[in-house]
């Protein structure tokens, strides 16, 4: 989910992945699969069927407990994040091995249960996002900002839209004061909703560091 290939490039070149890494400048995949944040993942079987629809890919919002002075999070919080990540990776391994027999592979009814409701405001947000990104690249910054701000207003839960737009609105990383204010405003709501998966920690958001 990156507009700027050159921002993504160093990460890809460092990781040297053996699988394709695609550049989704307009966040098309987010629109198709109803995604709102990164990292999210979809599991798809050999027949092209969704085994698990878009979900938080095992992330935990440890960053909310970040101590700005030390640059670290409490050990207990880091441990929860580690457990969440390990659980998700193990589940993927289980599915690779067992396929449809994996406890983590959803049946049809369960996949459908995990799909969101159609929301036309979100669809409108996605189209405004595409327009805004295009205008920004063409140098129409203020009109682009308006489109992107309206997109966020229509799809407030989409961190993809807000953080990608924040490159322009804040003139820096998408982790500036506005980002922290928006995260703080979540209160007890999750930044990364816990994955519906056996063994996944269900801890509430950690207190601010």
């Amino acid at each position, binding site marked *: 989910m990156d507009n700027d290939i050159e921002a993504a490039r160093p990460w890809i070149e460092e990781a040297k992945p053996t699988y394709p890494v695609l550049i989704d400048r307009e966040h098309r995949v987010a629109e198709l699969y109803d995604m709102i944040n990164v990292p999210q993942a979809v599991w798809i*079987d050999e027949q092209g069927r969704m085994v698990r629809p878009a979900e938080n890919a095992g992330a935990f919002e440890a960053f909310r407990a970040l101590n700005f002075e030390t640059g670290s999070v409490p050990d207990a919080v880091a441990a929860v994040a580690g457990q969440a990540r390990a659980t998700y990776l193990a589940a993927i391994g289980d599915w690779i091995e067992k396929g449809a027999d994996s406890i983590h592979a959803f049946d049809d009814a369960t996949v459908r249960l995990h799909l969101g409701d159609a929301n036309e405001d979100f669809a409108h947000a996605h189209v405004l996002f595409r327009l805004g990104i295009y205008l920004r690249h063409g140098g129409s910054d203020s009109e682009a900002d308006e489109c992107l701000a309206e997109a966020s207003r229509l799809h407030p839960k989409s961190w993809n839209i807000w953080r990608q737009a924040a490159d322009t609105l804040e003139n820096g990383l998408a982790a500036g004061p506005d980002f922290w204010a928006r995260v703080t405003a979540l209160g007890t709501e999750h930044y990364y909703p816990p994955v519906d998966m056996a063994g996944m920690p269900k801890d509430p958001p950690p207190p601010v560091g």
Partner: protein
Amino acid sequence: MTIILSEHGPQDVAAQVGDGGALWLDRQTCADVSGWELKPEGLCRGDICVPVAQGSGAQYVREEQIDLAGFWGHMNKPFAKSRDNAVWAFGEAAAVRATELESLEAPDFSLPDLDGNPHALSDFRGQKILLATWASW
């Protein structure tokens, strides 16, 4: 010329902005940018055909021209345009996306890698796929 942000990227086309926010395109341009073709049965895409509104009321087909904005509104699909009408983006309705997802078929797409080579999800049919997202921001 007018830029239309289509599924195949931005396309620079001949279009006429009309009264009430209309965007008139010839039938080939309409098909190129939206995938909807004007046929005797109406405007068609894949298996779906929408009969053209006749008589009074908003008309989005006039001779061999299609008002894509009017048609899009008629279909309750979202679209947006720049203030100067130079750039238009046409999106899909949430209800259509939701129906696609409810079929449980993973929607196909094609995107470029860092070298610009396109890869489609359907290229990998026959393998398990973990479609994972990340970002530099």
